[in-house]
């Protein structure tokens, strides 16, 4: 029997109510996300989150259908809602097809009124349908004349149809909405808006819950929580209607707004220049930041629970197995020996009897350096062999790579290469024997291990490794959908390769690498702003990725695990600032709290990390350690609308100090200018202060 991919469904919108309940995962105890959303708090909340951060899942989990699912139908459901002390009315703003309420020859303020009216009708129907459903087994409890009459009284024009039960009101509101729809649609053709508005904004969204609370016993002490999802799909003026609800809410009503990071277009309220203020009229909850900032082990446990639930529901593992099932044990992670002994031997086999790529490249650069008198202490090509013999480590290609790296560092500081090579050779021997815990090799391994490994993979034609469950959790960076998408692709590749993931065989490195690459491409193409902005942000990210990649794979990278940068926004022009902000809003960049302290100017600059989901696209590290400080001009060249030449100059200027044989700075045009001033770490002799 074919087993369906347990990670096939990655979007909460694709899940049924049953699946929303079954797949739901939360942090334990006081760390609970639901507790942070505070459904019983009357204070309105704006829930920000990048695409796939879980807003919809959380909000749907709080909605009425899920409340009923948890408590049961009939009396049990009514008691459950009473004890929950809230009733979740969930809706997607995207379903309103908001563009209909604009243009068509009508001024904006008319559309604002029409939209507000339309929302009143929309919300009323949802409320009535919910109440009817709650009391489906005892309709007599809600069809009391006083309730029906008070609802009629909320309308500016009393219904002409007989109202004997709540269903009649529902039908009436539906017909009013239908009349509005037809008028709005015809307006596009006739340019005339022939619509009579029969309800005042707020009368129903706030007034109807009050009436219901008065007459429906189940709802007497219950907070009506409007869960307005996909708020980003509303225009500025349409958002003002909801902002007005936020401002004018009264018991028993509150509102939780789910919105993407870029989605708030206005905080003003209708018919007034006034604005809602955070922590005064509403509070904010930033979901992906919250998830990212949880302790690493808590994030891993959360992700583990996500995986366990899916594997149990899918039938891949038995429910009794789930509690002890550790997803991390089901992914091959390759050679974990710190010296990469086994894997290194396999790679080195290709180069028996000839130079490894690192040695071949070093040899070439040394010879070129002699020619241009830039190889300190070397006069003739024969000297090169001596250096190479000292640096070469036939027994371990990885340690050899570290030795080459150390030689480039010494070279950049204009040290005698012979002396440096002898020191490096001794350090390699000590490290391999296990005695050199403070040797230069040991220090490089501590700080640059992943970067040197990345260089080794690249120059020996291996693909970069983004493997292991922990890596995938880090890559998702607060976006559970990103994690599920990675796992979905990996699962597909794994089964394609004939493996039996999570049952009888571990997921191979190949399946992981291919799956991660595919998920990364999806992330890059999916996280896209509309219109030309989207293209500009993608272009900027491509430039940034190229710069960081070139630095990481240079001869003497100055920063370890480089995936971050700080920016001098004072020197940046407006288009660059906007694109930077858009890149953050569309989750391509993550802003680092606290920023980066500029050593020279004393400023605190904004600091960003490339979203780790994008790391495979440019062979960048998932982890964040080093950062480069981008000047205003550099920010303009990368994020602005400058010509490609300006960016090419940035690349040259940044890379020149990191490339043998010159290791020199470049002038404004990108040409090599002057030598790097040697900086010597007195304790180690081989390191510069930039580490």
């Amino acid at each position: 029997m074919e087993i369906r991919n347990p990670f096939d469904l990655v979007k909460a919108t694709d899940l049924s109510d049953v699946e929303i309940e079954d797949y739901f995962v939360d942090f334990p105890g006081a760390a609970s996300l639901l507790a942070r959303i505070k459904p019983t708090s009357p204070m309105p909340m704006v829930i920000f989150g990048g695409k796939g951060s879980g807003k919809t899942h959380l909000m749907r989990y709080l909605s009425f259908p899920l409340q009923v699912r948890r408590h049961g139908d009939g009396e049990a459901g009514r008691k459950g809602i009473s004890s929950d002390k809230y009733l979740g009315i969930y809706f997607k703003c995207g379903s309103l097809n908001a563009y209909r309420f604009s243009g068509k020859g009508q001024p904006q303020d008319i559309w604002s009124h029409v939209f507000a009216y339309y929302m009143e009708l929309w919300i009323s129907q949802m409320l009535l349908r919910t109440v009817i459903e709650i009391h489906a087994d005892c309709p007599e409890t809600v069809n009391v004349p006083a309730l029906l009459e008070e609802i009629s009284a909320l309308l500016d024009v009393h219904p002409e149809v007989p109202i004997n039960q709540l269903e009649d009101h529902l039908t009436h509101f539906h017909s009013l909405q239908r009349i509005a729809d037809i008028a709005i649609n015809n307006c596009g053709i006739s340019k005339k808006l022939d619509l009579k508005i029969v309800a005042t904004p707020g009368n129903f969204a706030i007034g109807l819950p009050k009436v219901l609370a008065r007459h429906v016993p189940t709802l007497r002490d219950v907070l009506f929580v409007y869960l307005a999802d996909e708020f980003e799909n509303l225009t500025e003026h349409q958002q003002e209607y909801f902002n007005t609800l936020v401002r004018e809410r009264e018991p028993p009503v509150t509102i939780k707004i789910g919105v993407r990071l870029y989605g708030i277009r206005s905080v003003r309220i209708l018919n007034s220049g006034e604005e809602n203020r955070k922590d005064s009229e509403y509070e904010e909850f930033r979901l992906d930041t919250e998830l990212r900032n949880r302790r690493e082990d808590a994030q891993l446990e959360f992700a583990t629970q996500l995986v366990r639930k899916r594997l149990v529901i899918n039938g891949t593992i038995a429910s009794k197995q789930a509690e002890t099932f550790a997803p991390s044990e089901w992914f091959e992670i390759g050679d974990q020996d710190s010296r990469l002994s086994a894997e290194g031997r396999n790679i080195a086999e290709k180069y028996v009897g000839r130079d490894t790529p690192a040695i071949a490249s070093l040899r070439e650069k040394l010879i070129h350096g002699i020619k241009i008198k830039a190889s300190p202490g070397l006069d003739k090509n024969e000297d090169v062999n001596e250096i190479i013999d000292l640096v070469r480590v036939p027994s371990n290609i990885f340690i050899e790579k570290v030795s080459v790296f150390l030689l480039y560092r010494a070279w950049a500081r204009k040290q005698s290469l012979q002396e440096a090579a002898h020191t490096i050779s001794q350090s390699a021997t000590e490290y391999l024997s296990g005695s050199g815990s403070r040797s230069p090799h040991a220090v490089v391994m501590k700080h640059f291990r992943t970067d040197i490994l990345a260089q080794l993979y690249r120059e020996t034609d291996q693909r970069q490794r983004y493997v292991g469950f922990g890596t995938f959790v880090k890559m998702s960076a607060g976006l559970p959908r990103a994690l599920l998408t990675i796992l979905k692709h990996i699962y597909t590749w794994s089964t394609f390769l004939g493996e039996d993931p999570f049952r009888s065989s571990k997921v191979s490195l190949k399946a992981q690498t291919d799956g991660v690459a595919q998920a990364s491409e999806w992330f890059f193409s999916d996280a896209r702003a509309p219109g030309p902005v989207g293209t500009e942000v993608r272009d900027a990210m491509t430039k940034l990725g190229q710069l960081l990649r070139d630095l990481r794979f240079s001869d003497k990278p100055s920063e370890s695990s480089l995936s971050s940068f700080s920016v001098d926004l004072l020197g940046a022009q407006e288009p660059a600032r906007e694109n930077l902000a858009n890149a953050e809003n569309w989750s391509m960049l993550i802003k680092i709290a606290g920023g980066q302290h500029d050593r020279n100017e004393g400023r605190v600059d904004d600091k960003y990390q490339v979203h780790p989901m994008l790391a495979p696209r440019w062979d960048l590290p998932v982890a964040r350690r080093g950062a480069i400080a981008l000047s205003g001009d550099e920010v303009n060249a990368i994020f602005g609308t400058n010509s490609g030449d300006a960016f090419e100059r940035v690349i040259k200027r940044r890379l020149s100090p990191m490339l043998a044989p010159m290791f020199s700075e470049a002038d404004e045009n990108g040409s090599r200018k002057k030598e790097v001033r040697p900086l010597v770490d007195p304790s180690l002799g081989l390191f510069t202060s930039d580490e």
Partner: protein
Amino acid sequence: MTNDDYLLYRKGPLSLNSSWVGGWDTFVSAFNSSDRVQLMANHVAVKERYWLNLPEYGFKNSDLPNTATPYTSNADSEFEFLQEFFLKIGDIKKRRILIDITGFLNHYVVALAKLLIEQDVDECTIIYGEPVRYLKSEQTQFSDRSVMSVRQIVGFEGVHSTDTKADLLILASGYDARLVAEVANNKEHATKIQLFGLPSMRPDMYQESLLASATVADTIGPEAAHRGSFKYAPANDPFITASELSKISVQHRIKHPLANLYISPLSTKPQALGCALFYLSECPKTATSILYPYCRSYARETSEGLARAWRYDMEFAHLRARL
């Protein structure tokens, strides 16, 4: 109207070896730089001729060949553009009109169908020329892919339901996968069905459409991997396209009578015409919309040659009462 009724419309081939004579008074085409647009116009033996200069292509009127009178405007919508054009040329009800949709953009094709009904046109001949090939196969870009907004086409906006649990989005998918992704994203919550052009206009084009669609499978959702969510209608046949849409819609509404239905015409112009025909026949005042991803600009030249040409005899009189 049942899905079989669409098969009563007439579709027929046009010979590429002769002029096309049909007693038409007026010929209307939309200009772009693809060979087939001018080749089609050259076959038409009609004196009163118009080039619609659609603003999205960015031509000046002086860029257009002088084989027809150019018309352009800065109208707010495709519907308004065509409305103003027909107003300018006078009462079209009294004319026998021939419209070539080869150079039209899909949202103009959809609007055109409604406008002809609004203008009291009872019958009209629409023609379409198939390319020999698209310039870059499945990599061909028909737009600058800078989607400004995904929204309903004016006149096809529907009367929607507050219950969105069983919403259905039918993507008439073509080469421009980015556009497919944008629409799928806009109605992320809806169940998706992809309607592919099969038989395609050239044998390889169907495979190329599948390849293009596969590049955005993650955005479309789990349905993109399930063949049960793939439906087919000939790429050059608006009538079978309408019939297929009718079947899909009836099947969905049997289970979910109140569900919102969205259709997005992203494939060939005949299929866009089929989407419009289905909508105008069965969907006015229902919870059904035609959605379109509006781009900043569209490619002026996307194809080479003229392989085959078709005429579609449209009858609108019976649809007027439904609006």
